[in-house]
C-alpha cells in the first residue's frame, strides 16, 4: 500500500518513521550523537549536575570576587541565614569557633575600659588639686599677663591636632587632616615612619599577633593609634585626652574599615579616591578647654573675697576694740588727779601719750594694765609737775608741816585751811613753811586752836582788878592783880605775834549797885580807862586797847553779899584774837 506507506512516512510520530530518522542521524552525526546523549543525561541528571558545579564553584567564586561586590552582596543574606541556622542548631559549637577571634577582642575592650576608668580617675584627682588656680593667678601676676590668658594656656585639656589615616600594609597615607593651628610635617613621610617605628617596636619586643604600639607620648604630645585589618588611624593629640577620644577614634576607624576596607585592600596610592573620608577624620579633631578654671575661678574669688572680708572684719573689730580701749585709757588718764594729758594718738601700730604728772599721782601703768592694751604698744612721755588738786595740796602740806594728830587740812582755790588743836610751838614752827607750800597761796588758821595761847587768854580774862568803893584807883590786891594781868597780856601778845594772830583788848569797867547809876557809869569808865592807860603805859599799843564802862550791867558777883559787891567793883579785860582760835567753843 504505497499510499499507506507514504502516509506513514509523512507522520514523524510513527514508529517506522522514528526508526528511519534515528538511522539517518546515526549515518549523518556519527559519534557526535553519543556525546549529545551523554550531555543530555548530565544536564538532566541532578546528581551529575551537582558534581559538575561543585568542581567549578571555587574557581567561579574566585573569578566573581575579582569582578566586584556583586557576589558578596548575593551571598550576604545566605551567609547570614546560614550563621543563624548554625547558632540555632548548636550555639556552643559556634561560640567555640568564634572564641579565638572574640577572646582577644573582648580582653582588649576590657583592658581599654579599665585604662579609661583609671585615666578618668587620674583626671578627677588632678582636677581636685585646687592649688593650681592660685598658681595660675601667681603666674599671671608675675608675668603681667591677663589671668584669662594664663588660664587659656593652661586649661587646654587636649586638642587633637592631626588625624592620619594610613594604609596598614604599605604605610602609605590615605588621608590626612590637621587642625588650623597645628604644626605639621610631611604627612606622607610621617605616616611611613610611624608605620616603620610601629613595626620596629613590634619586632623588637616580640609582641604577639594583633598587638602593636598603640600610644606614645612626646612632651605635651601624645600619639594614639588604632588599627583594623587594613587601616591605621593615628591621632596626634596635645595634652591629656580623655578616653572618649579613644572611643571616637576606634569607632571611626572601624566604620571606615566597613566602608572602604575592600577598596583599601587594593589601595593603589591614589589619595584622591578617598577624599570622602575627610569629614570622618575632621570629626576626630576634637578639643577641650578645661572648664574647671572657669568654674573654679569664682570659687577661688569667693574664697579670697570671704577671707579678705573676714580679715577686714577682724581688722575692723580689733581696730575698733583697740580704739575703744585707747579712748577709755586716755579718758581715765584725763580724769585721774595729778595727770594732765597734753597729747594722745596713734603711732604706727601702737599708741603714744604725753603730758604732765604729779609725783603723787597714780602710776599711769596701773591704769594701762587695766585697760586691756598691751603695755608694749603704748609709749608714754610724762613730765613732772605739781598739781593744784586739793588732794595733792593737802597731802604735800601734811608731809611738809607734819601736823599733830587731829588736825585736818582742807584746800580750795589756793587756800589751805587748818582745823583742830595744836600746841603753840608747832604752830610757831610751821608758820614760816606756809609760804613754801606748793599750790597754796594762803594758809587759814582761824579754825586752829592754839592751846597755849588759849590758856594765856583765859588767864588774862579771868583776872579781876578790884577797886575800892567809889574809887578809880585799884585796891592793893587790885594793883598786884593788875601787874600780873599785864604780864599775862604781854605773853598773849607775844604768842599771838609768833603765830600771826591779831589781838584786840577790851578793858571793861564795873561797879556795884550802890550809888546813882549815872555816877556808876562814869565811875566804871574811869576805872576802865585807868587800867587801859596803865597797859598802854606798860607798852601795849594803844590801838590794841579799848575801854568801856558797863556800870552794873554785867555784874561779876552776887550783889547781895559784900564779897559779891566787892567783886563787882572791878575791871576785867576781854581778849579778842583773830587769826587763830583761842577758845574751843569758838
Amino acid at each position: 500500500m504505497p499510499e499507506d506507506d507514504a502516509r506513514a512516512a509523512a507522520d514523524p510520530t510513527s514508529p517506522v518513521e522514528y526508526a528511519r530518522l534515528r538511522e539517518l542521524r546515526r549515518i549523518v552525526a556519527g559519534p557526535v550523537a553519543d556525546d549529545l546523549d551523554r550531555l543530555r543525561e548530565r544536564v538532566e541528571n541532578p546528581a551529575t549536575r551537582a558534581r559538575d558545579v561543585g568542581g567549578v564553584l571555587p574557581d567561579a567564586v574566585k573569578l566573581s570576587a575579582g569582578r566586584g561586590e556583586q557576589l558578596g552582596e548575593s551571598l550576604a543574606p545566605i551567609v547570614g541565614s546560614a550563621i543563624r541556622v548554625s547558632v540555632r542548631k548548636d550555639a556552643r559549637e559556634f561560640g567555640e569557633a568564634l572564641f579565638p577571634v572574640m577572646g582577644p577582642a573582648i580582653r582588649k575592650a576590657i583592658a581599654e575600659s579599665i585604662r579609661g576608668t583609671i585615666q578618668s580617675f587620674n583626671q578627677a584627682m588632678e582636677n581636685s588639686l585646687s592649688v593650681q588656680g592660685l598658681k595660675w593667678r601667681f603666674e599671671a601676676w608675675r608675668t603681667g599677663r591677663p589671668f584669662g590668658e594664663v588660664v587659656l594656656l593652661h586649661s587646654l585639656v587636649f586638642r587633637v591636632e592631626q588625624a592620619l589615616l594610613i594604609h596598614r600594609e604599605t604605610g602609605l597615607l590615605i588621608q590626612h587632616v590637621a587642625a588650623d593651628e597645628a604644626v605639621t610635617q610631611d604627612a606622607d613621610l610621617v605616616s611611613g615612619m610611624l608605620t616603620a617605628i610601629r613595626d620596629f617596636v613590634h619586632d623588637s619586643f616580640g609582641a604577639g599577633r594583633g598587638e602593636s604600639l598603640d600610644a606614645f607620648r612626646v612632651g605635651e604630645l601624645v600619639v594614639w593609634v588604632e588599627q583594623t585589618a587594613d587601616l591605621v588611624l593615628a591621632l596626634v593629640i596635645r595634652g591629656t585626652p580623655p578616653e572618649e577620644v579613644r572611643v571616637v577614634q576606634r569607632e571611626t576607624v572601624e566604620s571606615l574599615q566597613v566602608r572602604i576596607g575592600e577598596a583599601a585592600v587594593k589601595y593603589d596610592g591614589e589619595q584622591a579616591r578617598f577624599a570622602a573620608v575627610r569629614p570622618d577624620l575632621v570629626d576626630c579633631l576634637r578639643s577641650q578647654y578645661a572648664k574647671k578654671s572657669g568654674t573654679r575661678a569664682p570659687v577661688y574669688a569667693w574664697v579670697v573675697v570671704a577671707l579678705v572680708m573676714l580679715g577686714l572684719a577682724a581688722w575692723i573689730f580689733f581696730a575698733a576694740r583697740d580704739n575703744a580701749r585707747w579712748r577709755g585709757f586716755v579718758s581715765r588718764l584725763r580724769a585721774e588727779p595729778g595727770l594732765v594729758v597734753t597729747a594722745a594718738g596713734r603711732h604706727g601700730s601702737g599708741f603714744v601719750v604725753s603730758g604732765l604728772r604729779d609725783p603723787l599721782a597714780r602710776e599711769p601703768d596701773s591704769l594701762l594694765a587695766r585697760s586691756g592694751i598691751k603695755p608694749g604698744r603704748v609709749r608714754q612721755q610724762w613730765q613732772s609737775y605739781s598739781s593744784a588738786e586739793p588732794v595733792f595740796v593737802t597731802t604735800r602740806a601734811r608731809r611738809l608741816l607734819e601736823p599733830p594728830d587731829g588736825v585736818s587740812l582742807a584746800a580750795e582755790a589756793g587756800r589751805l585751811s587748818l582745823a583742830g588743836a595744836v600746841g603753840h610751838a608747832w604752830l610757831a614752827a610751821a608758820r614760816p613753811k606756809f609760804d613754801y607750800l606748793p599750790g597754796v597761796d594762803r594758809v587759814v588758821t582761824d579754825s586752829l586752836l592754839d592751846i597755849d595761847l588759849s590758856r594765856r587768854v583765859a588767864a588774862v580774862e579771868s583776872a579781876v582788878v578790884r577797886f575800892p568803893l567809889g574809887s578809880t584807883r585799884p585796891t592793893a590786891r587790885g594793883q598786884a592783880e593788875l601787874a600780873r594781868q599785864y604780864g599775862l597780856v604781854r605773853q598773849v601778845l607775844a604768842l599771838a605775834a609768833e603765830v600771826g594772830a591779831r589781838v584786840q583788848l577790851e578793858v571793861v569797867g564795873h561797879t556795884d549797885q550802890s550809888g546813882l547809876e549815872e555816877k556808876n557809869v562814869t565811875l566804871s569808865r574811869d576805872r576802865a580807862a585807868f587800867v587801859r592807860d596803865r597797859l598802854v603805859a606798860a607798852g601795849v599799843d594803844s590801838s590794841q586797847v579799848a575801854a568801856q564802862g558797863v556800870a552794873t550791867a554785867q555784874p561779876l558777883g552776887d550783889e547781895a553779899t559784900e564779897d559779891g559787891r566787892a567783886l563787882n567793883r572791878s575791871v576785867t579785860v576781854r581778849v579778842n584774837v583773830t587769826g587763830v582760835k583761842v577758845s574751843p567753843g569758838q
Partner: protein
Amino acid sequence: MSVTHKKVCMLGSFAVGKTSLVRRYVHSIFSDKYQTTVGVKLEKKTVPVDSGEVVMVIWDIYGETEFQSIHRSYLRGAAGLMLVADGTRQSSVDALAGIRALALEESPNATGILLLNKADLATEWRLNSETERKLAEGNWPVLRTSAKTGEGVEEAFLALARQMV
C-alpha cells in the same frame, strides 16, 4: 591628572651607597640617624609619569650586615624595589638575588630595578659576565648609577615609577 603614592623599598648590602645615591634627589624630614637606630629612613620623591605624578615614598632600609638583619616588616606592601649594589664589590652584587627573594616574599606583587652604583669607578669594577647575566634574568632593568656624579639616578627613579603605574 592623578597623583599616586607608592611605597618603594631601597635595599642593598651595607655601604653600597644607597643613601648617598638619593640624598640629592629626594626630600626627607628625618636625619640619617634613623637608619642606624630604627633601621630605616623615609624619603620622598615625586616623579612625573604619563598619567600624572607618582609620589615615591622611599623606605631607605639600612644595609644588611652580619650584625643586623633587615626588618622584614619594612618590606611589606612595597610597590617598587630599588636594589642597589656596589659595582666594585662583587659580594654586594651577589647579595642582590637573596635580597630580591626576601623582598618578594613580603611583597610578591612588587616590581623592581637593579642599580649598580659607583659607575664613576667603573674601571675598577670586577663583575664577570656570568654575574651580569644572572642579574638580567629577573626581567628587571639593570642601570648603572653614580651617587658622585648623579649619573643615572633620575633615570632610575623615572624607570621605576613607570614600572609601578
